[in-house]
């Protein structure tokens, strides 16, 4: 007998859309579609992703206990609607302008307060670990969300290999800074390189992963090839892409969006429906793939991972430490 233990972050069975309701919804969509404007709601095959370089399927990936019963976001949407300002600020810019990006060979510098520091080749960094698939909610700070099947390794396991010292209170991450390869860096939308950071206990949390692929394939360039962070209980911009440096540091490291607009983006940036962005409400979100006329969905505390991560912030004033 198969016993399934529901994790608290999994959607309750009452939350899961029954197939009949879904089909009903589909037919209503169709009706609306013809009634309002034929096909107004149809999904868009993006020309950009059609010509994207083909990524190899990843071998030896095991399923993890982290899965969701919600339908996955279409690959075309997850790889065609991106925020990755290193390749431009438009949502289709990353797919369009990252086509010629060559993510390999790739090295990651491990630095700072650790017994072992080195510049490590991508393969050497990842190979010692078991690749697993993690289906996570992704909640962008712009109030839209996706369901993405990432492939990666627990960040904690990678960190342990380098034996951070007791002085290592935070982990600082850095994205590649190379305007020749990342044309969006030619304009100063942000202070390049993009930098992010986590508190050590956040970085060591089992939900945090270094992702090297999605949908069973190597990481597409526009999603942060070849290696990116995924911290699903925080807004998407915390999950830094195309990482070239991981440093263990004693003090809270600077983070790009916080430097750009400190009143809008805090160091923690945990998904929190009760703390609004100054310019828009964070109470609800739009699920990518939903139609023009479907309602927004309520945003969950810590993006639905409260049971796993709330303890990290016990006693912390969330409105102040946004």
């Amino acid at each position, binding site marked *: 007998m198969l016993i399934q233990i529901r994790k608290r972050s999994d959607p309750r069975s009452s939350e899961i859309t029954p197939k009949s309701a879904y089909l009903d919804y589909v037919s209503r969509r169709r009706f609306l579609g013809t009634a309002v404007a034929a096909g107004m709601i149809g999904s868009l095959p993006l020309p950009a992703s059609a010509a994207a370089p083909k990524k190899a399927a990843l071998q030896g990936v095991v399923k993890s206990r982290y899965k969701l019963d919600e339908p996955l976001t279409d690959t075309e949407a997850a790889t065609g*609607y991106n925020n990755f300002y290193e390749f431009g600020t438009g949502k289709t810019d990353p797919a369009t302008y990252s086509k010629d990006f060559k993510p390999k060979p790739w090295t990651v510098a491990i630095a700072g307060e650790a017994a072992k520091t080195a510049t490590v080749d991508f393969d050497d960094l990842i190979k010692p670990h078991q690749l697993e698939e993690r289906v996570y909610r992704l909640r962008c700070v712009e109030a839209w969300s996706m369901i993405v099947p990432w492939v990666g390794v627990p960040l904690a396991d990678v960190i342990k290999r380098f034996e951070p010292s007791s002085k290592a209170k935070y982990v600082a991450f850095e994205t590649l800074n190379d305007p020749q390869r990342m044309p969006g860096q030619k304009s100063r*939308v942000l202070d390049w390189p993009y930098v992010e950071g986590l508190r050590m206990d956040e970085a060591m949390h089992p939900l945090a992963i270094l992702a090297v692929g999605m949908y069973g394939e190597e990481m597409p360039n526009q999603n942060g090839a070849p290696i990116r962070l995924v911290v699903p209980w925080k807004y998407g911009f915390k999950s830094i892409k195309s990482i070239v440096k991981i440093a263990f540091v004693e003090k809270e490291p600077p983070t790009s969006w916080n430097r750009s607009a400190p009143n809008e983006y805090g160091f923690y940036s945990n998904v929190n429906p009760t703390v609004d962005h100054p310019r828009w409400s964070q109470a609800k979100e739009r699920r990518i793939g939903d139609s023009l006329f479907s309602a927004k969905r309520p945003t969950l505390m810590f993006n639905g991972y409260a049971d796993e991560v709330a303890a990290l912030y016990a006693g912390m004033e969330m409105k102040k430490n946004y």
Partner: protein
Amino acid sequence: MNADRLIRRVLKPLVFLLCLGPLAWLAWRAAGPGFGPNPAEFLNRFLGDWAIRFLLIALAVTPVRGITGWAGLVRFRRMLGLYAFFYVCLHLSSYTVVDQFFDWSAILKDILKRNFITVGMTAFALLIPLAITSTKGMVKRLGAARWQKLHRLVYAAGILGCGHYFMMVKGNQPEPLYHGAILAVLLGYRVAVWFRRASAARRNARESMRAA
């Protein structure tokens, strides 16, 4: 065909149809490839882009007329201004209907709490009396001088519209600045004309005093 009839019979209908272009394109997208992964955002941004563009186009009529000397251009001004208002209304409707789905309390909260929405709504409010008084009858009823004074509100609406755009984007994105620069040129032209007129008037006054 004389110039008047050319404008009335050919150019005005042509410009009218051209201004519907963005809407036609939207209809084509709706019928065919759709609005992409985030249709609500796409629709709202697209309509907002065209609202600010038409506002700038309408504000360009006077300077272009002054520079080219083509007086007939003024006859397109009302149509272009009303198109700006039309796209502003569509932009606002997409926010009200698609984005908020008539959640009036959320909308009110947005207007009061979110500065960029406050600014955008103010721009919209300023455009309403201009649209209402755009008819020939209204010009007559108000009198040309008063009508003109009232319609200077469009400058404020232009500034607020560009401000709304600038405040909306994340990071240092250049697009709102390009729009702001165009607006600065268009308004700057008017300031320059005003200064030249004022100094010419002063000179005339001096000369007539000397003559007397």
